[in-house]
């Protein structure tokens, strides 16, 4: 029934979280078998749904003493398999811990439980003239706990920074079930910045159970520009010029023809049919955003923009964003299957790398739709394929891998916001030397010497990545796993 947990462990878990807080029926635990990376599925032995920090600590202590691996999970929207369960392990689902505990306007802080969704935070403080800045595209459903695990960004992190810049403090359950307080509502906590390394560690160091977030004053004015270009290269050039001119827009997003068409079919936002569209948002004091708006329009024109529209009001702006944020979901309109890649390149290399993606797409005979956070060089190429065609999923995976290699050679990164998870652990050696990975391994070990807390994620392991650690070879098992995913 519930795998190899054993009756004593099950009893202790049940006592910790109550009868309605534990799921062991195979048909029910299957719901938790994957996150947003839907092809990789592992059913856990049990799922627990704690309500308090103490319950999480008791669950973790139970697992630690019995040497049972555990995986924390929020809404399961992650795209890198970071919340993939371990068979015979326990999933600690934090979705029932969803209270906003305190809004402290005097100190511009909000205290929340980890299951609160990203958007709920902004909704709670928006009427007061404030917002929570990180805004991943999945913000309606993704949770603050998951955002912390992934150090989530979003379109507006270009100006406002990532999750790590907006978390002041966290209550943290260690991998052996003790409770620590990291950071602080009062700034400048003494000692090492443990919170800084926990954020973005993909749930491998412990479990965050309560969080103090920083909120930001809503800007006086927001201007949104939609600019059409005949090619991705021209649009990329405009992005480089805007950044180089010393303008820091709140966001610069880019979509190519394929992505625009897909989004238009779903949202009908009225994007022009063009080779590439840029969405540039400027915010701040009216005097600044108005001046920058003129500069952005001039820069786009000089870079060959064929059409420029400025959103006339909030409704128009919302529609432009609705189309952009619907991009992934719209791919179903133009392709039976797709794989989302997440790579980063220096902003100055946009034209160059986009051309390489074009050439790769042509040589693999697979379409690639591009929709991404251009302002910080974070690409999201969507590799389109048809699972029904023999071998196409393998080719799609290979193409996605080649795109990552292009990002690394350009001086970039294998992930800007989706995380390494179980999907990209074996790519880590392409970016980091064995000794650099060894240092990260030692930090993991400092927090979780028994390797029970979300094992096998974020860092490569010999088991996953072939017997020689530090050298990447596509392992047959990995390929098989990926084939299943596609």
């Amino acid at each position: 029934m519930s795998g190899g947990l054993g009756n004593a462990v099950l009893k202790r878990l049940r006592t910790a979280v109550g009868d309605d807080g534990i799921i062991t029926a195979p048909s029910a635990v299957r719901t938790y078998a994957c996150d947003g990376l839907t092809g990789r599925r592992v059913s856990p032995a049990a799922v627990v749904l704690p309500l308090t920090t103490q319950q999480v600590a008791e669950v973790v202590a139970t697992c630690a003493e019995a040497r049972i691996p555990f995986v924390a999970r929020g809404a399961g929207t992650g795209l890198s398999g970071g919340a993939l369960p371990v068979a015979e392990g326990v999933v600690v689902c934090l979705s029932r811990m969803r209270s906003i505990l305190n809004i402290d306007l005097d100190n511009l802080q909000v205290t929340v439980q980890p299951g609160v969704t990203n958007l709920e935070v902004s909704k709670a403080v928006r009427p007061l003239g404030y917002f929570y800045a990180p805004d991943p595209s999945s913000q309606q459903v993704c949770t603050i706990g998951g955002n912390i695990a992934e150090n989530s960004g979003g379109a507006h992190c270009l100006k406002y920074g990532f999750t790590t810049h907006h978390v002041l403090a966290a209550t943290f359950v260690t991998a052996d079930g003790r409770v620590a307080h990291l950071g602080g509502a009062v700034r400048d906590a003494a000692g090492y910045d443990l919170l800084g390394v926990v954020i973005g560690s993909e749930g491998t160091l412990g479990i965050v159970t309560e969080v103090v977030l920083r909120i930001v004053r809503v800007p006086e004015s927001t201007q949104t520009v939609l600019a059409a270009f005949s090619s991705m290269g021209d649009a990329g050039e405009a992005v480089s010029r805007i950044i180089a001119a010393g303008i820091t827009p709140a966001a610069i997003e880019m979509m190519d023809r394929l992505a625009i068409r897909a989004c238009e079919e779903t949202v009908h936002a009225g994007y022009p049919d063009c080779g590439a569209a840029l969405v540039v948002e400027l915010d701040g004091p009216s005097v600044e955003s108005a001046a920058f708006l003129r500069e952005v329009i001039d820069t786009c024109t000089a870079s060959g923009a064929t059409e420029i529209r400025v959103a006339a009001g909030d409704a128009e702006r919302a529609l432009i964003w609705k189309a952009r944020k619907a991009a992934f979901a719209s791919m179903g309109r133009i392709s039976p299957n797709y794989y989302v890649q997440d790579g980063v390149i220096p902003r100055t290399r946009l034209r160059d790398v986009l051309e390489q993606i074009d050439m790769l797409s042509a040589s693999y005979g697979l379409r690639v739709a591009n929709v991404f956070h251009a302002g910080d060089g974070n690409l999201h190429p969507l590799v389109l394929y048809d699972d029904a065609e023999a071998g196409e999923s393998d080719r799609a995976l290979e193409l996605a891998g080649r795109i990552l290699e292009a990002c690394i050679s350009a001086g970039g990164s294998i992930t800007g916001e989706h995380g390494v998870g179980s999907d990209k652990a074996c790519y880590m050696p392409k970016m980091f030397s064995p000794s650099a990975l060894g240092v990260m391994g030692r930090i993991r070990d400092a927090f979780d010497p028994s390797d029970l807390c979300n094992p096998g994620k974020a860092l490569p392991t010999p088991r996953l990545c072939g017997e020689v650690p530090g050298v990447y070879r596509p392992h047959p098992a990995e390929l098989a796993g990926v084939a299943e995913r596609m």
Partner: protein
Amino acid sequence: MVATASNLRVFSAIVGSKYVRAANADDAVRGASPKAVVSPADEEEVAAVLTAASTHHLAVVTRGGGTKLDWGAPPTRCDLILSTSRIEGIVDHEPADLVCVARAGTTLAVLQEQLASTAGFRQRLMLDPPHGDAATLGGVVATAASGSLRTRFGTPRDLVIGASFVLADGTVGRSGGKVVKNVAGFDVAKLLVGSLGTLAVITEIAFRLHPLPSASRTVVLESRSVDDLCAFARAVGRMQVTPSVVDLHWPEGLVVVRFDSSEQGAEVQAKRVTAEIGGRALEGRDETAMTDALAGSAWQGSGDLAALAVLPSRVGELLTSMSGGICDTVVLRPLLGTGEVRFPPAEADAVRAAVRNAGGRLLIKRGDEEPVGVADDVALDLMRSVKRRLDPAGTLSPGRQIGGI
């Protein structure tokens, strides 16, 4: 340290005899006297020096510009100073990308000069820590030092996007990279920010840059009333303006608000403040004179020095209890609740009590007092665990971090 002569030979063999010397009285670190000063040329030599030091059980304190070497507790052992003075230079500056990579021994001043003078671009690393003229990048990061610009741009924690470093056993580590957005691997650099040299020797750092503003305007409010000063600062925080600096100075009785923007952007924002909540706008020579007079006022002069932090809402309460003369200088960033105080050692208890009563933290940068508001036991235990994994023999700056780490 035993057998000094033979140890010196070991290090000479690594870095060349020219770059090893016997230490003198000026090399002491808060009373701990090292035996030798070694100046490796690059990461590889740093690794070899640390490996040799570990083998010979020598404790190593890393020194950059030496401007903040008295921050932190005295090292429990100090045999060798590892000077980063030769590990300098800008490795990579991609101006159109607003990113630069520099070696740790580069001074902040040299970096800023180069960034401001790149043809076609005027940029800056938005950090203005104390002793910024002589401080090195590695030292600024290791001490998490920041200044007035923190209100808008944050601390080294917010601006470092990657780092290379060497552990005590010679292992070369790296994290992050030279792109601003990057979540591959643990953010190890965060652990090094403020680590006081206890975890690794930082060799190279990648920073996010910002464009130099073309104009600035400063608004000041002068008052002897703590309440008025705090109310003014809070009101600025509530306005939809974006100041780079909001500093409160005591005993001067000043709130200084600076806007860095375009000519028009700075002008309009400064005028809004004076029109809506008061204060007086400074320009040109007035502005420069005022800024120069206040710059680093907390860091100059004698006495003990502490960084403190309270909730922003309790700044007034804290300042009221300190305004009676127990501190020589108080510089606060009221919107963050952080700042620095300088005080005669005899007033240490009163300062500590004031901070404790306001629910705050006091971290002694220079002085022997116990800090206020340190980490809980479990967090401390995790910190010790990190130290043990990265520097099991306690080679690097032992005892300088809180909790004797």
